[in-house]
Structures are given as C-alpha cells and as structure tokens.
C-alpha cells in the first residue's frame, strides 16, 4: 500500500484537530506545575471522570446530550478540588515526593471507581457535528474534530483572559512566581492554588469530553494513556510554559496521527515515546521552557 502526500497531509490535519485536546490536558499539567512546582498525576483521570459524570448526568436526566460538555467540566472542577485537598493541600511543602505519590494514588483510585461503576466496559459518548464534513480541495475536515478544535481554542482564550486580565489571574501568577511575596501582598496562596486546581479541572473536563466525543466512546482505558500524553506534551512544550503546552499539544496530535498512518496503530505510541526521548536528550527544557530556576 503506497502512502501518498494527500494521505499524509490528511492524517496531519486530523491529528492537529484532535491535538487541541492534548493541548488542553498539557495546559492543565503545566499550570499546576507553574503554580506549585509539583505534578498532579491525577489530572487526566479527573478529566475522564468528569466526562463520565457528564455522560451519566445526561443519561439519567434525559437532558440534551450537548449538556454533557457543560456538566463534565463542572464535575472535573469539583474532582480537581478534591484532588487538591487530599493530595496537595496538607502535604509538607518541602517534600516533592509525597504529593506526587498521593496523586498517583488518586489516579488509580479514580480509575478503579470508573471501572467498578461501569463494569469496565466502554460507553458510547455523544458526538457533536459528526454528520458534518467539509471539503476543501482534496482535503476533508471532520465536523466533530472542528467542533473539538473550536471549543478548545475558545477555552484557551478564556483561560488566557482569566490569567492575564483578571484579579484571580494576577493572584495565580503571583503565587507561581514568588509565593512568599504573594502572601505578603495579601494573596492567600492555598486558596489561589485551590482555584487553580478547579480552573485546570474544568479545562481537563472539557478535554476529556471532547476526546471521548471524537473517539465516540469513553472507557477507563483512556486515563493512563491520556495522562502519559499530557505529560509528554508538558515536557515537549517546556514545564510551566503556557504557549509551549499549546504548541506541543498540536504537535503531538499531528505526529501521533502521522505515526499512526505510517506505522499502524500497534506501533504508534513507540514513536511518540521516541519523540519524547529525542526532546529529553537534545532539548530537555522543552520547546519554550526556561532553564529550571526559582528565586
């Protein structure tokens, strides 16, 4: 089977569109890392769990399916807060390992809850605009992926506005840059961090819903791969870099789909990891990350 240019370009287009969900997940990791200099390993699990809650809510109440995209993120925000309180708030600040291990525990805890609640089988997730298909010359654009892209871009713009245009964003940036000075300015760092977890939780929930919508099903098997993809995006973008996470999210989505086309689904992730290793060796600070520095 020959692979021609149009197949490659089409694979990259689809990958870039889907990559916007990776960008959202990467943003969540990078924002929490920026705020607390700690990784929240339970982040993608909260995102998927939120999508499940959204799905359950519309299934049980008979609300229109599109509301899952609203209820899911809200649920993820609440789960994010719970993860903050249980895994970060009361852990000693000097111990980097304790919250890391606690959040890995939360990852598998959430995963297990989902498996028990659904008997481990995948559920159909409502797609939006999946009957729409645009054609531009020889290339096609799937309507559901365009929905994913547009929603992600709107979410990113809202996030950037919150971070750089509001009092809450000022507090978040202050705590991430200099926590002692932030406290001296009257900014309660614990409350600000809790808000960051809620905010990133909402972002993750949106990504979780859209990843599920794009694939058409939601399954507990998604949590670990999305965690890993999110971390890869964060590392490639540069830990703590917001534009880095966005660019890397799209890039990983594009490359992933290209690898899928060239090497097949069984080998796809091997090459995604190779990409990660290439970055770790040749550009360990990522695309836009600064050298690790803290004053």
């Amino acid at each position, binding site marked *: 089977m020959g692979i021609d240019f149009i197949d490659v370009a089409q694979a990259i287009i689809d990958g870039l569109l889907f990559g916007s969900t990776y960008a959202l997940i990467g943003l969540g990791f990078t924002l929490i890392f920026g705020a607390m200099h700690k990784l929240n390993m339970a982040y993608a699990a909260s995102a998927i769990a939120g999508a499940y809650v959204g799905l359950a809510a519309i299934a049980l109440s008979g609300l229109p399916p599109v509301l899952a995209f609203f209820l899911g993120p809200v649920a993820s925000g609440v789960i994010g807060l719970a993860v903050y309180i249980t895994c970060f708030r009361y852990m000693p600040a000097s111990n980097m390992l304790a919250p890391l291990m606690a959040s890995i525990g939360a990852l598998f805890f959430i995963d297990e809850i989902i498996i028990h609640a659904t008997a481990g089988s995948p559920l159909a997730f409502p797609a939006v605009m999946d009957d729409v298909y645009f054609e531009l010359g020889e290339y096609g654009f799937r309507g559901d992926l365009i929905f994913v892209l547009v929603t992600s871009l709107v979410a990113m713009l809202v996030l950037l506005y919150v971070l750089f245009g509001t*009092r809450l964003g*000022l*507090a978040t*940036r*202050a705590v991430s*840059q*200099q926590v*002692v*000075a*932030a*406290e*001296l*300015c*009257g*900014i*309660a760092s614990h409350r600000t961090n809790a808000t960051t977890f809620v905010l990133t939780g909402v972002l993750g929930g949106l990504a979780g819903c859209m990843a599920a919508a794009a694939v058409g099903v939601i399954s507990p098997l998604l949590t670990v791969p999305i965690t890993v993809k999110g971390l890869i995006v964060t590392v490639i973008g540069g830990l703590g870099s917001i534009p880095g996470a966005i660019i890397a999210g799209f890039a990983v989505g594009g490359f992933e789909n290209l690898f899928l086309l060239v090497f097949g689904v069984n080998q796809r992730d091997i090459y995604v990891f190779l990409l990660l290793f290439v970055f770790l060796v040749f550009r360990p600070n990522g695309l836009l990350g600064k050298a690790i520095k803290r*004053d």
Partner: protein
Amino acid sequence: MLEVRDLVTAYGTIEALKGVTLSAKQGEITCILGPNGAGKTTLMYSIACILKPVSGSVKVNDTEITGTSAPHALRCGIALVPENRLVFHSMSVEENLMAGAYTRLSSDRAGVQADIDNAYARFPSLKDRRAQIAGTLSGGEQQMLAVARAMMSRPKILMMDEPSLGLAPLIVAEIFSIIRQLNDEGVSIVLVEQNAHKALQIANRFYLLDQGRVTFSGTPGEIGEDDFIQRAYLGSKVA
C-alpha cells in the same frame, strides 16, 4: 504600636529566635541590627506571619496576630519589604504594584490607580519602566519596586529587611532618603540593616540581635558608633 513578646521561632529543632521581646512606637524608625545568622529575617517573617512561631506573641495596636496568616497581618497594617526584594520577576512593574494592592483591587479601583500614580511620583524611574518585566530591572530599581509594592497596601507599619543589600552607595543613599520621607509622612518603620552606620543616622530606637536574642537596645545617642559597631559585629564581651 507593634509589640513583640518572648517570640520563639524554630526550624525543626533549631531555635532561630530564642525569646525576642521588642516594641516599635508609632511614627518612629526602629532599627534591628545584628550579624549574619542573628535571626533578623526570621524575626521579620515571624512578625509578618509567614513563619509560625513556637511561642510568644506579636501584637499590632493591641490586636494579637501571632500564628494567623500573612494576608491577615497585612490587613492589620503591617507590610514587609522582604530580603532580596522578591519582586514578581515575570510581571510588569505595574502588575507588581497592582499585586501589592491585591486586597482592594476590585473594590477600590480609583484608589488603587491613585496609589499607583503616587508610587510613580515617588519613584520616577519606575514610571519610565511601568511596562517592563520586573526581572529585567536593576537591583536598585527592584528594591524601589519592592518598597512601592509594599506601600500599595497603605500600611501603618512598614518593615524592611536589608533594603541596602548589594546596592551601590548612591542607591543606598536614595533608599534611606525614601525611608525618611515615608516616616515623615507618618508611616512607622521597622528596619533591619547590616549597614549600622547608615541605620544609626536615621533610627529613633535600635535593637541589637545576636544568636536569636536581643542583646542590647537603646537610642542612637546613648553610645558611640564605634562602641556600637564593636558590640554588633565583634561581640559585646570584647567591648
């Protein structure tokens, strides 16, 4: 105004403050001097409620603030210009000032803007660099920014931890003239300094801190400067 009594603060089992008692009076400049490792910064952080003391009390205008939070201490009228300035390095100068007024940022927009204008009037070099990222300022400008940021909370007591550290003599003179100016405007000052010569010129009252204890206190006129420096840096027994 500020009353500190028997304050003990420890890092793990090591006591950095071993029962410090001092007071700062309204409208005065109170200096805390002492060698490296005396506990001066620990004392500042304990008063500002960044660190939680093991025992003892800190009162501002008879209100107990010990063991509360730094935002609470700020609301009680204490602001600290921390050691090493600690500006928000990736924010602009103006955002740093806005962060300083965080507690009334949404409720008092006009007041915050007026205070920012006041800060620019006091520190013209900051006005020229209002959109510049704070991490790219010189050390002296960062110190000015840290002072201006602390003043944005309209404190009754301004504490400053080694504001002259690592700065050129000309800048140090400027900082001290600003301290005096702020004091003339009615702000009580608590100043931690290594530069005893400069500090004694403006202080109304001083405390000498050594190994977590107040070893000497008084007014600058009481002893000669040479004698003072002897006590402060070479140990009181030698004198």
